[in-house]
């Protein structure tokens, strides 16, 4: 099915077209959402809303980019909105915890290492990296995730983000510098403990 046939089928709510849309794009949508959210269940739940968003707004698709680029754009925007909502809920639950029982210190603290052992477990390292990525400015975060996790080329990222190629290169370069600083600071703090 070509992009044009698929778009017309979605507009007409044709069940075969909708099935084709989901089976073709669901893996890409879920994995991209997972790279932003860090949780597969959340990514699968979010993907349902992404496909609803695609179906509801297909009439607004102007075909300036390819259908897959447009779908990636919707996925990235919905993922970031989800993270912002989760952050706001986190603020409320932290305020709540001030008034209710103390849940204790939830920060990850590394174990005492033995001679040749890593001080952090893999999940802890994943959490540290995810927090560092989420601390980046939004555009740097998007560019870095699409580049490092989703293996998009600079050109594809430029199409998804509607930026020039040089802007994308600059974003990724700055993202790496900022990540470097943040990770060094996180790992150096451990050494001081």
């Amino acid at each position, binding site marked *: 099915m070509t992009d044009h046939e698929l778009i017309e089928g979605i507009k007409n709510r044709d069940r075969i077209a909708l099935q084709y849309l989901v089976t073709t794009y669901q893996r890409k949508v879920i994995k991209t959402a997972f790279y932003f959210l860090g949780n597969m269940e959340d990514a699968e739940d979010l993907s349902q809303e992404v496909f609803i968003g695609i179906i509801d707004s297909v009439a607004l698709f102007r075909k300036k980019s390819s259908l897959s680029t447009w779908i990636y754009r919707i996925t990235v925007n919905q993922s970031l909105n989800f993270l912002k909502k989760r952050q706001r809920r986190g603020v409320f639950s932290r305020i709540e915890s001030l008034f209710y029982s103390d849940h204790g210190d939830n920060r990850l603290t590394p174990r005492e290492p033995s001679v040749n052992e890593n001080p952090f477990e893999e999940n802890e390292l994943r959490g540290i990296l995810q927090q560092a990525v989420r601390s980046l400015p939004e555009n740097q975060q998007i560019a870095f995730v699409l580049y490092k*996790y989703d293996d998009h080329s600079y050109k594809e990222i430029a199409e998804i983000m509607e930026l020039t190629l040089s802007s994308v290169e600059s974003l990724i370069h700055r993202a790496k510098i900022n990540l470097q600083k943040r990770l060094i600071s996180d790992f150096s703090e451990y*050494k001081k403990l």
Partner: protein
Amino acid sequence: MDCKEFRDNMFAFQDDALSPERKQAIFNHLDSCNECAVIFREFQLALATVDSDKAAEPNPFASTRILQHIESHLEKRSRFMVMTKHPWIIRPVVVALSLAIGVFIGINRTHRTPATGIQQVSESPVIQSLKTEFFITDFIDEDKSFTIYQ
């Protein structure tokens, strides 16, 4: 190469984006600086989690759940569209309901017409006996005036 220079080039070194001379300088620094060696090791291990995240796959039944969610969404939308597609049924019903609600509220309010005046003190047995004793027909609390609802 000092620690600052090394730490500024960790990502480039990891991505193999340095000249052979700079790479050698970094190897030399890692051999001589234990702190940088530990930090670089953690940095590499953290970046290695990207590869394990890339390998994660969604639930094989995810597409079934997505399609069910889409079906339920389209069903809700079509029910909404039926209502907006038949205004010649919906509008008169809405107008009639609004009138009925307005009449009901109006009737309710007329039963609560305000009457200002002086509230009569309720007659307790003590007051009744005082009235009898002093031939008083009624007590009126002149200090207070209330709006009472009949």
